[in-house]
C-alpha cells in the first residue's frame, strides 16, 4: 500500500519527467503491440518501390515495394528488446563492479578498474564490428557486445558514487556490528545509489538504441530481411526523394524515443526523493559526463 502511494507521489513530482515517460511508454507499447496492428505483413510486396503515401500504404512503400507503416510497427521489437536486455545486464554488472571497487578499495579496486580501463581503451564500435564479422550477426552476440561496452563506463560512474557513500557513518556502523560484506553492498550501499542508477539506466538505454540502430544501419542485424528501424533508414535512403517517409518515420521515432528517455532521466535527477545522499549537481555531472568522470577524476578519487 505504502509502496504504491509512495511511487505515485514520486511520479507526480516529476512533471516534465511524466511527459518523457509517457512518450517513451507510447513508443515501447507501440513496438510491442505494433505487429498486431500492422495492416500488412512486413514481408509482402504491396506496390511499386518508393510509392508515396496512399490509401493502401499510409506511409508509402520502401525500396522493395513493402508497406512502410507495417515495417515500422514490426521494426521496434528487435531493437528495443535487445537494447533493454543489453542495458539491464550492462548496468547491473557495471553497478556491482563499481560498488565492489568503491567499497573494498585497495588491490581489488586496482585490478578490476585497470582491466576495465583496458576494455575502454579499444574503440568500441570497431571492436563490435570485428566480433560481428568473425562470429556472424546473431542477436545474442549483439546484446552481449553492447552489454560489454556499457560495463566499464557504468562501473566508473557507480564507483565514484559508491566511494562517497561508503565513507558514511552508517556503513561504519554496519561494519562495527559485523554485517557481511555481501549484505553491506546489497542492503546498505546499493539502495543509496538508486538515483544515479536510474539515471544510468535511462542513459544507457538511449546509448543502446543508438548503437543497435547504428549496427542495423550498417546491415549487421541478424536477419537482413527482418524489419528494423536502423536498417530501414539505411536501405531506404537511396529513395529519399521519391518517398521521404520511408526514412523520416524511423528517424522520427528513434529521435522521439531518445528525447523522451532523456527528459525522463533528467527529471529523475532533479527529484528530491531520488537523491538522498548526493547533491544534484554531482549526480548530473557524473551521469552526463560518465566518460569524463571516468578518465579525469582518477587522481581525485584516490
Amino acid at each position, binding site marked *: 500500500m505504502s509502496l504504491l502511494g509512495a511511487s505515485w507521489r514520486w511520479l507526480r513530482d516529476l512533471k516534465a519527467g511524466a511527459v518523457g515517460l509517457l512518450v517513451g511508454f507510447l513508443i515501447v507499447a507501440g513496438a510491442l503491440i505494433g505487429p498486431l496492428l500492422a495492416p500488412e505483413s512486413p514481408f509482402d510486396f504491396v506496390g511499386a518501390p518508393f510509392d508515396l503515401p496512399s490509401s493502401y500504404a499510409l506511409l508509402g512503400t520502401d525500396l522493395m515495394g513493402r508497406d512502410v507503416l507495417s515495417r515500422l510497427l514490426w521494426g521496434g521489437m528487435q531493437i528495443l528488446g535487445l537494447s533493454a536486455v543489453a542495458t539491464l545486464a550492462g548496468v547491473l554488472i557495471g553497478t556491482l563492479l563499481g560498488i565492489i571497487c568503491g567499497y573494498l578499495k585497495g588491490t581489488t579496486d586496482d585490478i578490476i578498474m585497470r582491466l576495465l580501463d583496458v576494455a575502454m581503451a579499444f574503440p568500441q564500435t570497431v571492436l563490435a564490428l570485428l566480433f560481428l564479422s568473425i562470429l556472424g550477426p546473431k542477436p545474442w552476440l549483439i546484446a552481449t557486445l553492447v552489454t560489454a561496452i556499457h560495463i566499464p563506463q557504468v562501473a566508473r560512474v557507480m564507483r565514484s558514487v559508491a566511494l562517497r557513500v561508503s565513507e558514511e557513518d*552508517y556503513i*561504519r*556502523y554496519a561494519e*562495527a*556490528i559485523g554485517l557481511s560484506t555481501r549484505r553491506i553492498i546489497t*542492503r*546498505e550501499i546499493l*539502495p*543509496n545509489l538508486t538515483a544515479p542508477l536510474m539515471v544510468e539506466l535511462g542513459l544507457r538505454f538511449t546509448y543502446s538504441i543508438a548503437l543497435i540502430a547504428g549496427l542495423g544501419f550498417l546491415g549487421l542485424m541478424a536477419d537482413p530481411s527482418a524489419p528494423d528501424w536502423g536498417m530501414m533508414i539505411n536501405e531506404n535512403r537511396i529513395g529519399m526523394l521519391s518517398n521521404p517517409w520511408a526514412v523520416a518515420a524511423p528517424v522520427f521515432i528513434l529521435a522521439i524515443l531518445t528525447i523522451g528517455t532523456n527528459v525522463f532521466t533528467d527529471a529523475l535527477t532533479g527529484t528530491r526523493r531520488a537523491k538522498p545522499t548526493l547533491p544534484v549537481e554531482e549526480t548530473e555531472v557524473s551521469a552526463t559526463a560518465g566518460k569524463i568522470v571516468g578518465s579525469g577524476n582518477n587522481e581525485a578519487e584516490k
Partner: protein
Amino acid sequence: MTEDYKEMLAPRATRLALEVRNLRVSVAGSDVDIVKSVSLGLVPGEILGLVGESGSGKTTVGLALLAYCRKGLRISGGSVRIDGQEVLSLSARELKKARGRLVSLIPQDPGTALNPILRIGTQLIECYADRRSATEDKLLELLRLVKLPDSPAFLRAYPHQLSGGQQQRVGIAMAFANRPRVIVMDEPTTGLDVTTQSHVLDTIRSLCKEHAVAAIYVSHDLAVVGALCDRIAVMYSGQIVELGSTAQVLSSPAHPYTRALIDAVPDLDRDTAVTGIPGSAPEPSHRPAGCPFSPRCTYAEHRCTGAFPPMTEIRAGQIVHCVRANEIRVDPPSARPVEHESAEERSIALAVSDLEAFHGSVQVLKGLSFTIHRGSCVALVGESGSGKTTTARCLAGLHRDQRGQVLFDGELVPPHASERSLHLRRRIQYIFQNPYASLNPRRTIGQSVAMALQQFEPTSSAEARRRVVAALDEVSLPSTSADRYPHQLSGGQRQRVAIARALIVGPELLICDEVTSALDVSVQAVVVELLTQLRRDRNLAMLFVTHNLAVARNIAQNVAVMQSGRIVEFGKVQDVLHSPTADETQRLLADTPRFAFSVP
C-alpha cells in the same frame, strides 16, 4: 509604548548603529511567517547575542539585516536601518555596495566560506571596492588586526593550509575590511574547540569595541553568548521573547523559555545537573495561538493560550513577553544538583593498557591506559586532534592499525570488528557524532533498529517489531516514528534513534563519540539526561568523548584529559575540575566559557 520603544530596546544613545522595527520574514507565496515582528536597536560598539533553538528564526533575522533571505522566503515587512539608512528598500545595485561596507556577515563554517582555490591575499583584496587601493601593507595591517601572522607568506597561503581558527579569523578580517557599521555573526565558533573559540571571541570583542562596530552574534549556546555579549535577545518561534542586558537575562531571567535554556547549559561553576526542554519548537505553519512556548511551558495557564503576551518592561532595559514574568522572575530555580557517584567499588568492565594507534606512518595514540568500571562513565576530553575520536574508534573496532591490550570483562578484544566474536560485538556498541550520517537514509527508523537486533538475535518480524517499539519507547520516541525515514526527524530525535539502536542488542559498554556536539544545547541536555538514566538503569559502562569539560562534569564520574595522543590527567571528575594538575586541564578549564553570574 511605541513612542519610547527606542529607549526600551537600546541604551540611550545619540545615534543607533542598527535599528530594526517590526521585521517580518515569510514563506514566499503564503502567509506563514518564519519571523514575525522583531524589533531591536544597537548602539555602535555593542554586541547583541541572538539566542534560540534550531528553527527559532535567529539565523533568518541575522541574514535579513543584510536584506537577504534564503530561497523560498521573502522579507515581507518592517524596516532595517543601519546608521540611519534604510536597507530593505535599496535596489539590487545599491545593496551590493551596502553589503560588506555598511553591514557584513561572518558565516558559520569558515571551511566552506573561503574559496579553496584562491590564495588568502586574493580573497582579501576582493573585499575592497577599489581593488587598487588594497596594497600589501593594507592587507598586512588587516591580518594584524585579527591577530593572524602578518607575513607576505601568509597572504600567499591557500585556505586548506590554515587551521579552523585561522580560517575563521580570515573570515573576520574579510568582514572587517571595510569597517562596516554592523556585523552579523552566524555561530562563527561552533566548529572550533574551546581554546580556539575563546581566542576568536576575544578578537571579535576587542575589534567591535575599538572600531565601534555593532555586532549581532547568532548562537544557540548561552554560555558563549554570556561570555561575549553586552545584551541578549532570546528568540522563540520567530519572535523575541526576552531582551535585556547579559547580566539581567542570565541572572534574573523572566521568561520561562530563557530559564529553561539556562538550565540546559552545562556550566562549570554551578553544581546543578542540566535539564532538557521537553518537546520541540512548533513548525512555523503550526504555531499555536497565544504564547508559542505555552505547550512546553511548566508555568503555562489559561491566560497563555489566548493571544501573544504583550511586551512588559520589568525593569529598565529588560523587556519580556510573558504574562507571568513578574512572578517567574522571583521564583527560585528548580535546580537539581549533579549526583556524585563513586565508581571504585564496582567491577572493572574495560581495561585498556598501552593502546597505540597509527594513521599511516603517523602515531596518533602514544600509549593510553585507563579503566572503565561497570555502571560508570569515563569522559574523554581534549582539544581537536588530541586523539579522542581515534581512541573511541579503536575500542569500537573501526580502526585496524592499533597496538596494545584491551581487556573487556577479562576477555582480550581484537583490534578490528571483523576479528571479534559476535558476543563481543554485541556487548560493545558505538554511537556516532553526527546523527545525520549514522542512519541509512534509505531505511525507516524501524528497519534500522531491527537490523541491529536481527544481526545478533534473529527473531520473527513480529517479535522484532515489538522489541523495536519497546526500544524506541525507552528513548522517549513514539512507536509511530518506527515508520519514519531519518530525514523526517530532527537531529535530537535521530540521535535518540542511534541510542535505541545501540541499546536494543543489550550492550554492556557504550562508546559515545561527541554525540551531543551536533545538537542544540537544549537537546544536548535531553540526551545527557537520557544517557545518565540508561547508565543507571542498565548498569552500563560508558565512554563519553567530548571537547566540553562542562558536559563531562554532567555525565561522567571519571575524566581523562588527552593531549597529543596521551592521557595527561585521569581522575574523579570533581577532583580534576576543582584541582587540576596538568597544564592542559588548566588551560581547557580557563578557556571553557562560563556564566559570570549566579542564578538567584
